[in-house]
């Protein structure tokens, strides 16, 4: 990925992330989040991870955010100006900054070596290479994740039946 693409994408992503937090209208906030997810997918595509990029669009931009939008419209949420308290935003901002600082402290400095350019191996990011990894090296986490999702589905059904 060259510097120009990276800069443009990153600026757009940060801008849409800020829009998610600062928008007064819930629909616009959700749409900014959709934009953020799609830009993340573009990142993956640029990094040759085609499968992950497309899955990002299907799962987050396509499924999760559509449900968000659906609920926002169904409840007909109005622009909630009075709910916005400045101090709430400040607390959240400080928390996020602390978290980010910790992440940088632990991982950021170690990244000097790994950020060097590696050659992309043959077949990287294809369906076959990804699924081979998923069903051999990472089989247990993969199955546990699917179990977790199943629990969530069953939980939702139980709650809905009440």
């Amino acid at each position, binding site marked *: 990925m060259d510097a120009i693409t990276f800069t443009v994408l990153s600026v757009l992503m940060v801008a849409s992330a800020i829009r998610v937090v600062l928008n007064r209208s819930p629909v616009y906030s959700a749409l900014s989040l959709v934009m953020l997810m799609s830009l993340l997918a573009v990142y993956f595509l640029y990094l040759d991870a085609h499968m992950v990029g497309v899955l990002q669009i*299907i799962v987050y931009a396509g499924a999760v955010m559509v449900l968000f939008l659906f609920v926002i419209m169904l409840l007909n949420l109005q622009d909630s100006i009075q709910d916005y308290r400045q101090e709430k935003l400040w607390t959240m901002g400080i928390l996020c900054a602390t978290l980010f600082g910790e992440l940088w402290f632990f991982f950021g400095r170690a990244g000097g070596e790994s950020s060097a350019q590696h050659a992309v191996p043959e077949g990287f990011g294809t369906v076959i290479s990804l699924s081979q990894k998923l069903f051999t090296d990472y089989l247990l986490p993969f199955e546990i994740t699917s179990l977790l999702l199943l629990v969530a589905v069953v939980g939702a059904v139980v709650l809905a039946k009440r």
Partner: protein
Amino acid sequence: MDRIDLLIDVVLVLMVIGMVMNLGGLLLWVERKASAILQDRIGANRASILGKLPINLGIVNTLVADPIKLFTKEDFIPPGADKLLHTLAPIVAVVPALITMLVVPFGDIIVIGGREIELQAARLDVGILYILAMVSLGVYGIVLAGWSSNNRWALLGGIRASAQMISYEIAMGLALIGAVLTYGTMDLQEIARAQSGMLFGVLPNWGIFYQPLAFLIFLTAGIAESKRAPFDLPEAEPELISGYFTEYSGAKQAVFMLVDFLESIIVAGLITTLFFGGWQVPLLDRTGIQFPWGGGIPLPSLVVTLMQVGAFTGKVFFFCWLQIMIRWTLPRFRYDQLMILGWKILLPAALLNVLITALAVLISESLK
């Protein structure tokens, strides 16, 4: 060399988008005529441009009259509407629909000047997933149109559309998994190639003979995804006026109509590629027609390519026509029937299909 590759890509992309848009415009006319024939009417048979042209140009005239009329009408944004989203919604709706067909191959390799060109605009390893991604993005335009109009009917239409499309996407995706399991790839060109040759010497080796259930599920879910009758509850005119595009006029409404046609072209293109051999012509391979009893007619490669592209177009056109026939034959579902069909019939059937296909693949692998 790089520049020529880029030029080829641009030409292919423009070709596919142009083909899809032209077919969409043509379908508008076909739909009007077909519905008229089905209902024993004559249908649109005359149009005079500017009221001055004395001669009736027949097809050409009615073909261009509708789009010209729609695009020159006043574009009205209701006062209470969200202006930005109201304008953005048709664009958000049409872009995914336009670029979905890019991964669908419309022919085999063509050789120009020693350079082999795949007749497919974007050769993606994740082709089928890309289609699912674009289909899932298609919901946004509809939902935004419904919400931004600030109209109860439009909002109801938008909500219905999103609930319906989310429900049928699942059955659609699972039907596609059946096809992916059969061919072991998500690349649509590979899937089309795998359907060459003959089955038992009499039938073309098409996906429908391996995945008949998936075909039925995919066709049903596809019609539901394109929101056309009998699944047109989002725009049910007796209840919701026109549903999500009630507040649209002029060019923007034309774009929503175009999206409907584009979606049925996408469904037709995918059915063709996955279940009816894509660009494959029975008995035809790269060198010419091969008879199963030996012998054959050698053909120049250009003729073969033209025949393949023609076969693909013909099949797509047939399935578009089939969808139009279904639209004008079946009455609209009730909303509970729609949900029961999606969740209690199509979803279990699709899961069963995946299970059976996986077992069959396992058994055939172990027999080898």
